[in-house]
């Protein structure tokens, strides 16, 4: 029986989704593993969102946890003070993060301002927000601010177990992937690709470089900010240490190593690298926490030097070979859909 490639793809996608849905139920007694997979999903979300600003718009953003932290603090503070549900906090957190992003991006995306300045600014943004929130005793301060505890409250997004957070993260991940995919096929996606190829030529074809980059940044910041609200609920507190430069760099590394042209690339990198990191942390303990950063940075440099398109491309080529063997369809090998 000849299987068509599109059918096979759909079936595979379905299987992956089904597995993803079932995983937490299989390991539900092991809290540690639950946290692990949820963390993998979290970084999957961040890296996939990052792909919009990094892969598509070509900006090396190092502020993922700046936007996450802003979302977390917005939602968390609203919850603590005025009992605003984090479900609403997600939206507001996303908006606050987006607002900040625009403040930063607006001057820096001007025509002819080199991209490196955005990278530098975003890198510094995280560190500075940390200091600012430590100093802002009213909202932040040096001590954790705990969110009100409930053993199970949908309104407050607090549950006694990690399982619901897993599903929330999964849902956000799916949204992020879909957004990624849709943008890739839209006018914005084409414009961003053109900008990445040659900014002068793109501008002369009517592409407003600044507007496009800002749009990409805003979508990314909103997604990450909204995720921040969930992050706060997962941990049960908010603290200026959320603004972590090292973790923001990790997100960028995942995006680059995964592959900036392929929608699921960053997710793939997240699955591999974050699992490895958590494994290291479990076996070697906190003392060796810097070790995984050493590994991450070496991986990044190696990928940048030898496989700049990222690991997803290798994965995709291998998959295509498999697919053409199964379906007997040679055309699969040359498919040229953007983003897949």
């Amino acid at each position, binding site marked *: 029986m000849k299987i068509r490639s599109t059918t096979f793809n759909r079936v595979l996608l379905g299987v992956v989704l089904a597995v993803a849905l079932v995983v937490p139920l299989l390991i539900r007694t092991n809290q540690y593993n639950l946290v692990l997979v949820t963390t993998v999903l979290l970084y999957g979300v961040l890296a996939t969102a990052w792909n919009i600003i*990094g892969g598509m718009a*070509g*900006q*090396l953003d*190092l502020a993922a946890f700046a936007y996450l932290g802003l979302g977390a603090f917005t939602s968390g503070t609203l919850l603590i003070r005025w009992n605003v549900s984090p479900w609403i906090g997600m939206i507001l957190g996303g908006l606050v993060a987006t607002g900040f992003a625009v403040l*930063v991006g*607006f*001057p*820096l995306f*001007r025509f002819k*301002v*080199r*991209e*490196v*300045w955005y*990278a*530098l*600014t975003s*890198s*510094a*943004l995280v*560190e*500075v927000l940390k*200091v*600012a929130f*430590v*100093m802002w005793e009213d909202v932040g301060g040096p001590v954790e601010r705990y969110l009100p505890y409930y053993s199970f409250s949908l309104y407050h997004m607090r549950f006694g177990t990690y399982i619901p957070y897993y599903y929330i993260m999964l849902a956000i991940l799916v949204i992020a992937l879909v957004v990624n995919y849709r943008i890739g096929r839209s006018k914005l996606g084409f414009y961003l690709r053109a900008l*990445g190829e040659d900014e002068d030529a793109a501008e002369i074809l009517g592409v407003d470089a600044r507007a496009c980059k800002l749009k990409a940044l805003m979508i990314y910041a909103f997604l990450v900010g909204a995720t921040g609200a969930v992050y706060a609920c997962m941990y049960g507190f908010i603290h200026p240490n959320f603004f972590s*430069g*090292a973790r923001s*760099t990790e997100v*960028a*590394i995942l995006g*680059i190593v995964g592959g*900036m042209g392929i929608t699921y690339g960053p997710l793939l990198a997240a699955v591999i690298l974050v699992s490895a990191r958590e494994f290291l942390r479990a076996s070697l303990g906190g003392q*060796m926490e*810097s*070790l995984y*950063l*050493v590994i*991450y*940075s*070496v991986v*990044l*440099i190696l990928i*940048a*030097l030898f496989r*700049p398109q990222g690991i997803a491309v290798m994965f995709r080529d291998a998959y295509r070979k498999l697919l053409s063997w199964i379906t007997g369809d040679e055309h699969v090998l040359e498919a040229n859909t953007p983003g897949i």
Partner: protein
Amino acid sequence: MDTVVQSLLNGALMGCVYALITLGLSLIFGVMNVVNFAHGDFVMLSMYFAFFIGSMWGVDAVFTPVVTFPLLFIVGVVAYYLIIDGTLRQKYVTQIAVTVGLMTFLRAITQLMWKAQPRALPYSLIQGSIHIAGYNIMLSRLISAVVSILAIGGVSLFLSKTWPGRAIRAASDDLDAASLVGVNYRWTYALAFGLGSALTAIAGGLLMTFQQVDPTMGVRFGLLSWCVLALAGLGSIPGLLISGIIVGAAESLSMTLWDPRARSLIVYLIFILVLWVRPRGLFGRK
């Protein structure tokens, strides 16, 4: 009022050292259009080297650059050929990303090897302070500023009078205009990277006479040098010195008048403000 002037003085002196650090960054950026994200961490690295040389061989921090300058030069050149040279043909994001990788690597390695504990050297021979017009100036800061200015002057001479120096300047000038020329300037890139990194050794040695080092120094000097670079713009060395002094003074004032923790906030605010209002910098040509 007294405290304000005192603070300004201290800050201005520090600013000269910042300018020296930034000069290294500017050399690299001007020639290669790549900002070395790890530059602040090179400062930190040279401070650590100064510490170990100082404590193992009993050498005063002030003299450590004799060893650390060539050492950092080699580190810079090696880093260039190992990491950066291979990415020159690639997307800009990738080029910046490798220096981010280098930065992450250095920070993580120093954390692993030397832990978070700050290290400091015993008092240098340039200790003590002098009094001018009722203000107290620490000798170590004064000498650091003077040496920094001399070093900056030396680099300026190097760039205008020596052949390799002029090659570096030519490579920076050619950047915008002559992609048509296509001459291979790779060795000037390596030289610029090595020299730019080596300059941090001088600053590092000077800093160790009155400061301590820990793994977070990289973040601090990174932000400072980017801010000074943004303020100064590319192409003017005196402008770099002035910008360094401005940033140093502002940082010092913010710590005195507002909050000691606020130093990075002010530096960042200046950084953002400059990029908003005058991205070319105060003295920049492009």
